[in-house]
């Protein structure tokens, strides 16, 4: 059961990811990206990371994908499809090299496999790791400050004089 679901999700997500880069129509590429996000959320569920799966759908599908689609809608001359240029072959080589390095690292790492039962429910454990005593509260606060700075920067950039 587990492996059937995994292979189904893996095949769909890789096919979706391939069509993101190969589709001529940018709007369809964005929709394929959404499909890819959803299947990744499905993979999280098979790994018992239910919170992560819900957040993946909430942020990537509900937020980022919607903004990407909006940006595409606001772009002119979109019907011509995605443009290509002379950097095609170097980009392909670089991507291939990156893939080879990542694949090599993945295969040659001795992964630790936990034999414990997964945590149910996951949210209290996550919360106490993040914001409990001796958790990662400093990191969370730094990330929040960074996001605030980004929002303020965006406001300053678009403000009318």
């Amino acid at each position, binding site marked *: 059961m587990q492996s059937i679901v995994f292979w189904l999700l893996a095949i769909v997500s890789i096919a979706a990811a391939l069509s993101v880069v190969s589709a001529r129509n940018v709007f369809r590429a964005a929709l394929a990206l959404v499909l890819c996000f959803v299947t990744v959320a499905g993979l999280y569920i098979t790994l018992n990371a239910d*919170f992560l799966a819900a957040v993946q*759908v909430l942020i990537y599908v509900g937020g980022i994908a919607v903004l990407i689609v909006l940006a595409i*809608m606001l772009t002119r001359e979109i019907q011509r499809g995605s443009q290509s240029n002379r950097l095609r072959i170097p980009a392909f080589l670089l991507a291939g090299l990156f893939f080879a390095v990542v694949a090599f690292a993945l295969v040659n790492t001795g992964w630790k496999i936990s034999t414990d039962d997964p945590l149910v429910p996951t949210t209290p454990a996550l919360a106490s790791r993040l914001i409990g005593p001796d958790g990662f509260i400093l990191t969370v606060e730094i990330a929040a400050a960074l996001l605030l700075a980004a929002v303020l920067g965006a406001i300053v950039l678009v403000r009318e004089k």
Partner: protein
Amino acid sequence: MVTFDLVFPAWQFKGLPPDWPGGFWWHFIVFSIIILAFVLTLVIMFIWFERRTLGRMQARMGPNRVGPFGLLQAMADAIKVMLKEDIVPNGADKLVHLLAPLVAFVPVLMVFAVMPFQDGAALVNLNIGVLYVMAVSSISTLGIFMAGWGSNNKYTLISAMRDVASVVSYEIPVVLSLAGIVLLAGSLSLNDIVRSQAQSVPFVLLQPLGFIVFFLGGMAEINRSPFDLLEADSEIVAGFHTEYSGMKFALFYLAEYAEALVLSTLVATFFLGGWGGPLLPPWLWLIVKSWAVFFVLVWIRATVPRVRIDQLMTFSWKFLFPLALLNLVVTAVEVVAWPEALPVLLIPVNIAVGAVLVILLSRNFKPGGSQVEA
């Protein structure tokens, strides 16, 4: 060994009878059928109820020819729409045009997977229920987008643009208003939220501000009148479903009322005590409460004229958003400072705080005063 059973412990419910078929698939099949029947029946009843009530409020009859009191009108409309020709406009993106109604409707149905019909009786009792509801319901925006883009029509595109503006802005106050409830209940599971309301009082009394923000924000998110800018008939024909006919149009129509049903049942579950109540069976309480919420939706539709796009934006960012934030802060302070406080004490405090904040904010709130380029 990691299995699905750990993620979806579907049969660990107390409200189900002991001879309930324990298998995962049996539970899945039975509850899928229950949810489908629940949604389709109530949607058809809601359509009839809305048309009749609107008719009464506007001093006219409403549908009254098909069946007793016009009860079968929605059925007749469904048959009519199914017999119509399916038209796809020239130059439309055919695949996107075909998939759009499905993408709009399926997530709405998926929300009901975590809806408890009585104590523990749900398809799955996810312990991240609230998050799941918010995540899944945000997907159906994409369906409206796909319809707007795939139809190759400028009016549908304008409608889709308006939809993203409203969804992106109203998502924030809606999620923040639910955070107060999660703090009070101490759980993200919908069933636990209802159970903790059964132990104390319905959360509408403890969270009056959260109730207002969630109700109004939810109305904007499901594009109910007066926030139905994306179907503004006087400006952009019929909005995103201008180019749809036949069964595809019926799916959009179904999705629209199913979203209203989702909002009604969610308000009933989060704020009005869900299945909890005396005498009547729990599932009937849920339906009665949802129906009452839906009546208010119809009432508002018959009363308030449609807002402009700048009013829509201002209302979210300058009114609902600060209210939701303040509500979250007040609730957090209360939960930390008086964790054992009696609801009798907290109810008047919270209602007073809510009333003061609403009056203060509405003093400084001018719906038409700002400039919005959209």
